[in-house]
């Protein structure tokens, strides 16, 4: 079997390769596709955390969109004064992202403290209430700008890269980099000792306590880590869309995130990536498909937006029935069976107890 150091190195190498591939992809994608890639990367930050939270520690968060929103507002509220003070470029982006991390971390910390005391449905209820309250909070707190939201200063391509990359490409780079910075630590946590502790707490809190693990600390820590990742995603999404509004982080989006990680495969980072891709591309593909079929405009209006929800629901049912491990496991199995066909198989099975 592998040693922790080997596993760590493997995670780092893989995330570096994936980041480079994604950055390379921005050169061949057109501007709209680059925008979609940036959105996928930002959402990946949130789904990667959510899959860890639900899959590993067993804490059900229905309000994950709020953590992304906290990141977005944190970014907007920091970047706007920086812009007024004349700070520009990368420095302003970093300052804004720091604001995103602080606010999201604070919200995540509070939720984590509650999460350590609340179990299952009660935590789900709390996070659900939070996401429902978001529009009201944004109306009541003047700085959050109500339904209209807060504007975010535009970040153009830095002079050094001017002419080489387009604006959408630059934004996609930022989002991919943010995703790498958010997800790699989560992957390290997952494969390392903290991941073991999380699993132990999930399996049996009493047994974990007997083994010297503090479930409260593990749960709160998990929530904070996950909130930081989601906050980074929310912050970078604010840069890409130049706006943060409660409408972007409504209940439907929050539930969609959860459906995405379940369909992708709970507990798996790859599943979270598949989920993020689905969240962004599925509604778009359906809308494009519906438009291409050439239905009467009235029917098209009726279908618009609703079909995507229907397909997500159907997909959730289909996946849980056919591949209970999620799409990533199903895809992973395909690839594994392919690689074993071409590669002499190892004699020792890697996991005896999986699933």
């Amino acid at each position, binding site marked *: 079997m592998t040693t922790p150091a080997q596993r760590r190195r493997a995670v780092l190498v893989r995330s570096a390769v994936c980041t480079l591939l994604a950055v390379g992809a921005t050169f061949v994608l057109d501007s709209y596709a680059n925008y979609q890639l940036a959105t996928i990367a930002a959402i990946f930050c949130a789904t990667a955390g959510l899959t860890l939270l639900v899959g590993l520690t067993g804490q059900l968060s229905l309000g994950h969109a709020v953590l992304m929103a906290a990141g977005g507002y944190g970014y907007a509220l920091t970047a706007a004064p920086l812009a007024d003070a004349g700070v520009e470029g990368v420095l302003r982006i970093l300052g804004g992202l720091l604001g995103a991390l602080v606010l999201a971390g604070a919200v995540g910390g509070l939720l984590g403290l509650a999460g350590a005391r609340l179990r299952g449905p009660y935590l789900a209820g709390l996070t659900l209430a939070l996401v429902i309250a978001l529009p009201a909070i944004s109306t009541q707190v003047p700085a959050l700008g109500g339904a209209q939201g807060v504007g975010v200063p535009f970040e153009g391509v830095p002079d050094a890269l001017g002419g080489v990359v387009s604006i959408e490409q630059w934004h996609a780079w930022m989002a991919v980099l943010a995703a790498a910075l958010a997800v790699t630590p989560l992957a390290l946590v997952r494969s390392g000792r903290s991941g073991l502790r999380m699993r132990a707490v999930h399996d049996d809190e009493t047994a974990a306590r007997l083994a010297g693990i503090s479930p409260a600390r593990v749960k709160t820590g998990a929530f904070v880590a996950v909130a930081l990742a989601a906050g980074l995603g929310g912050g970078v999404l604010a840069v890409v869309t130049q706006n943060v509004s409660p409408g972007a982080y409504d209940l439907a989006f929050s539930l969609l995130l959860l459906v995405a990680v379940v369909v992708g495969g709970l507990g798996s980072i790859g599943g979270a990536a598949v989920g993020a891709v689905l969240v962004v591309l599925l509604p778009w593909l359906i809308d494009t498909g519906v438009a291409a079929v050439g239905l009467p405009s009235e029917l098209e209006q009726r279908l*618009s937006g609703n079909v995507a929800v229907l397909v997500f629901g159907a997909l959730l049912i289909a996946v849980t029935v056919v591949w209970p491990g999620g799409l990533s496991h199903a895809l992973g199995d395909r690839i594994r069976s392919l690689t074993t066909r071409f590669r002499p198989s190892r004699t020792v099975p890697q996991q005896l107890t999986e699933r």
Partner: protein
Amino acid sequence: MRTPTITRAPARTFVAATGAGALLLSLAACGGADEAVPGVSEDTITIGTHQPLTGPAAAGYSSISAATSAYFDYVNANGGVHGRQIEYIVKDDAYNPANTQTVVRELVQQDDVFAVVNGLGTPTHSSVLDFLNQNEVPDLFVSSGSTAWNDPEEYPYTFGYNADYHVEGSALGQYAADEHAGKSVCVLGQDDDYGETFLEGVQIALGEDGVTTYETYETSNQDVTAQIGAMQSAGCEVVMLATVNGFTALAVGTAAQMGFMPTWMAASAGGDYPTLVEFLGEDVAAQVLQGFTSVNYLPFSPDGEWVELFTEINDEYNGSAAFDGNTVFGMGVGYAFVEALEAAGEDPTRESLVEALESGEVVGNGIVPLAYSAENHSGYDAVGITMVDGGVQDFVGSTYRLEGESVTAIEPEQLPLDGNGIPAAE
């Protein structure tokens, strides 16, 4: 389910990413077009809009884009503009700024639209204002009365259309001062830019202390009893409404139940009689809305020649949908766009379209000409007072223009209907 202890996630990430990438590429290849001017081909011009077809605002406004589409169909059936057919792509944003950003990017980057026309809503359109101007996409006839669209220095590609809330508020304020002198005037407004800008307009006409009380409501709370009660006890005789249609009906209905019968004056966004009848019902509306005052700037007089033509177009190209103020508005927008496109020349570019508008050649079909120039990108700067009498809403003749900080009564200069109602090239 237990999770594997060894992460093989990035491999999957990679597979997912490449798969999605390949998919994107193949799709992008289908939609791409490599013409010199985006959205303009040999025989078509593609434009787009974002509209609330679903969601909370759909009930009041989803019929606008249908009316605009019908007008374009009518123009296309008559040979189009400079031989090109107009293709109008309507995207649903459900009145959610986050959706607006996505669909407008889709319009600009994927559908390669020539211009965005009549994007609806203040919060929604605000979120794409920077994007459209950075990408130098003409952003014409924004469907909102906000004063934010008139900023040619910052947003050279954006043009308003509606009379803004300053214009409407000041006109109603002046009308109240002229016709109801000495009466106490109160304002009920939506608790956002709409209400506040309208109040500023009323104060332009009546002075800072000309408004007895200002009450606000939230769209999320379907109860305005407290606000109506406060105005009743403050002795308001004229109540001005910066409300959407649903809340106009709610306010008038609630007040009637409480035995409070002031003179009602509503901004155009909440003053469309046919729409209010749908909310209140024929019988109640006829009673409580007698003498109901509002403003308009488009030729919506039920017995006018424009309405006659628009009704014909509505019957032929819009499946005889219910005909109301939105229909006139949607078709008016279509008329102004065709006019702009005619003026932009045989081979229009985005620059020539903006130049055509700034030249002042585009006048629309309203009760006063649109007054675009290089320094002024606002829409209608004057409105006519309308009143409901015996179930019919029509202009009473008083028309007010806002110039700077002064409101003046003017004579309407309604553009007569010429020929088939399609603007001809000069």
